[in-house]
């Protein structure tokens, strides 16, 4: 089913944490986090070097060539 669906979406390339990734066109930051199964409350997202505040994750649509960084706190230091 997933394979058949993919035919109808236009894919675009973004850079996610330094690696190129193909994602479906028309995906928001919130949508991407959901796909990746990342809880929004625990991460911070930077898009093209600007921080995307949590309130606008749903309204922020990704476009071809976007560079995203998704970070969180880890042990260290």
């Amino acid at each position, binding site marked *: 089913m997933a394979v058949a669906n993919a035919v109808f979406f236009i894919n675009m390339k973004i850079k*996610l*944490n*330094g*690696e190129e990734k193909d994602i479906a066109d028309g995906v928001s930051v919130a949508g991407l986090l959901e796909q*990746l*199964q*990342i*809880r929004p409350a*625990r*991460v*911070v997202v*930077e898009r093209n*070097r600007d*921080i995307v*505040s949590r309130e606008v994750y749903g309204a922020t649509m990704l476009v071809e060539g976007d560079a995203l*960084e*998704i*970070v*969180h*706190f*880890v*042990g*260290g*230091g």
Partner: protein
Amino acid sequence: MEDFLEIAGNKYRSRLIVGTGKYKDFAETKRAIEVSGADIVTVAVRRVNITDPNKENLLDYLDPKKYTILPNTAGCYNADDAVRTCRLAREAGVGKLVKLEVIGDDKTLFPDIPATLEAAKILVKEGFIVLPYINDDPITAK
């Protein structure tokens, strides 16, 4: 008289600031920090591992209401990266206190003082409370 450590108007019962690296797992980290009695806990900011199925998060183990979370810029080698890291940390909602470190040498992990100073100036202007990692240098520390 009660003894406390005061940083930028906030009082801390313990003078100990503990790290969160090198532990076996988050449960061990949590237990060690509880036993330490520290109020301030420093944490690093890193990219989320997109493909890692383990979705546990350090903040599930360290309650930011119980501890003051002190994000650090460990692993930053220039002022720009350090400033970016601090801005990301602030967005995570743990306050304005940051441990600024700009590493100048991979082997010794000694700080790059001019870069640290450059980053500190920007961060202070943006309202951060900066705890810099520097040598014992009272002139720069001013």
